[in-house]
C-alpha cells in the first residue's frame, strides 16, 4: 500500500533551508488569496511562482505531479460537470468549461503549494514549526507540545499501519477471505475481519508506546528542543511580502 504522505525529499536548497513557520504562513496566505481571485492573470502568476519554487528546491517534476494525484478525480469531475449542459439537449458549453478549468487550476495550486511544504520540510521541522505557531494557545491550556508530538508520531506511523493492514489482509486471505468478490455489501463486510484486529493491534501499540514514552520522562511539559528555530531576515522578508500581497489581493487592489 503506497501512501504519499510524509514524502519529504531531503535537500539543501533555499526552499529547504527556509524556516518552516515562514513556509506555513506563506502557504496560508497563498491558499487564502486563491479563494478570492477572479482573474486568470493572477492564477497564472501564482502557478509560475509555484513552478519557480519547485525548480529552486530541485524537486523532480514526477515527484511533484505524484503529489497531485489524489485530487485528479475531483478535478476531472469538476471539469466535466461544468463543461456540459442537459438544458435543451446534451451539449458542450465553452464558458462552463473555462469556469471548470478555473476551479481545477485553483484546486491544483492549493494541493501543489501544500505538497511543496511536505516535500521540502522534514516532519520534525514541520511539527516544531506548528508547535511554535500554536504556542499562544498554551495560555488557553491547549496542550500544544502534546498536539505537536501526536502529529509527529501520527506521520511516523502511517507506513507502519499500512504494513499492518497488508499483513492482516494476507493472513485473512490465507484463511480463504476474499475482498473483491460479491456485492458491495459483501465486500464491505469482508473488511470487518481486517479492521477489528487492526484496531485491537493499534490500541495495544498505543498503550505500549505510551509506557515507553513515560519510561523516558515524557510529560509534555518542560521539554527542550534539539535545535531552536530562529527566523532569518529572509524568512521575515518572505512573510512580510506574501502578507502584503495577500492584503492587496483580498483588498481588490491587485485584480
Amino acid at each position: 500500500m503506497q501512501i504519499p504522505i510524509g514524502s519529504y525529499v531531503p535537500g539543501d536548497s533555499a526552499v529547504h533551508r527556509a524556516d518552516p513557520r515562514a513556509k506555513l504562513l506563506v502557504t496560508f496566505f497563498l491558499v487564502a488569496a486563491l479563494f478570492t481571485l477572479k482573474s486568470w492573470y493572477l492564477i497564472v502568476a501564482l502557478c509560475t511562482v509555484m513552478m519557480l519554487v519547485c525548480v529552486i528546491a530541485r524537486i523532480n517534476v514526477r515527484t511533484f505531479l505524484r503529489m497531485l494525484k489524489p485530487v485528479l478525480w475531483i478535478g476531472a469531475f469538476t471539469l466535466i460537470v461544468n463543461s456540459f449542459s442537459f438544458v435543451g439537449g446534451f451539449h458542450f458549453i465553452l464558458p462552463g468549461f473555462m469556469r471548470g478549468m478555473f476551479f481545477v487550476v485553483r484546486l491544483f495550486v492549493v494541493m501543489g503549494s501544500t505538497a511543496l511544504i511536505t516535500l521540502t520540510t522534514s516532519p520534525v521541522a514541520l511539527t516544531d514549526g506548528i508547535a511554535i505557531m500554536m504556542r499562544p494557545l498554551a495560555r488557553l491550556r491547549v496542550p500544544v507540545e502534546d498536539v505537536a508530538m501526536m502529529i509527529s508520531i501520527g506521520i511516523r506511523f502511517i507506513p507502519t499501519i499500512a504494513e499492518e493492514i497488508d499483513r492482516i489482509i494476507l493472513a485473512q486471505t490465507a484463511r480463504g477471505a476474499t475482498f473483491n468478490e460479491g456485492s458491495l455489501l459483501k465486500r464491505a463486510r469482508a473488511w470487518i475481519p481486517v479492521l477489528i484486529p487492526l484496531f485491537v493491534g493499534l490500541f495495544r501499540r498505543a498503550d505500549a508506546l505510551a509506557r515507553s514514552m513515560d519510561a523516558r520522562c515524557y510529560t509534555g511539559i518542560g521539554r527542550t528542543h534539539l535545535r531552536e528555530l530562529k527566523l532569518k531576515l529572509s524568512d521575515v522578508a518572505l512573510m512580510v511580502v506574501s502578507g502584503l500581497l495577500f492584503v492587496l489581493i483580498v483588498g481588490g487592489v491587485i485584480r
Partner: protein
Amino acid sequence: MHCHAHAIEVDHLNYRYQDGTLALYGVSFLISHGMRVALLGPNGAGKSTLIEHLNGIILPQEGRILIEDVVVGPNTLATVRERVGIVFQDPDNMLFMTSIAQDVAFGPLNMGLDGAEVEKRTNYALDAVSLSEKRDKPGMHLSFGQKKRAALATVLSMQPRVLVLDEPTSNLDPRAKRNMSELLEHLDITLLIATHDMELAWNMCDTAIVLDEGRIVCMGDAHGIMRNEKLMLEHGLEVPPSARCQQ
C-alpha cells in the same frame, strides 16, 4: 563512586491486576551498584510487571521500592526515571520518532537538557551501539538487531545509573545475539536483565533472581542457581549449555 548503598531496594512488594489476579506477592530484594543481575522465570511469572515497577510505570499497591535514597511514588517519578532506564522487549515501541537520532534524543530532551548536551549524549549513545552511520534513518528501516541496539541507545543517552532490560536478545539471530551480549558486556553500569536466554544470563550476570507465580523463589550466585537442574526444571527454566560443559 556512588554514596548510596543500594541501587535498588524492593521491600515486600505486592501487585494485583484489576481482575484480581495476584501478579507479585511479597517480593523483596536488594541490588547494589555495579551488580549484574539476571531475572529468571517462566512466562507469566511477573517479570515484566516487576520491571515496570522499577521506574514507576506501575506504582506499588503495597510495599515500597527505593531507587538509591528515593522512594518510588507519584512525586518522585522524574528523578526515578532519570536513574532507572528500561529497555522494553519490542524495539518498535521505542522507536517512534522520524529518525534514530531523534529517538535517542527523546529522553534527554524530556529531561530538559540543553541542545548541546543532548547532541553530545546522542552522539555518545549512537557510538556505543555502533549506529552512528544510521542516525538519520527512521527506525523502521533498520534490521531487527539494529532496532534492538537503537532501543538500547535511546535509554543509554539518558545516562541512567541502573539499566533494566526486558529480553534483550529475544528474536535475534545468533550474530545479532553475540553483538548484543558483547555490547552489554562492555557497559559499566548496574544491570538487571529479565531473560529466557540462559546462556546470556550465564555469561553476563553475577547474581540471579528466580521469580515464579509472582514470588521470589531464590536469589544468589548466578552460576550456583543456574547449575541446579532440579530448580531450573521446576520453574520452567533450563541449565545453560555452558554450565553443562563445566559439569
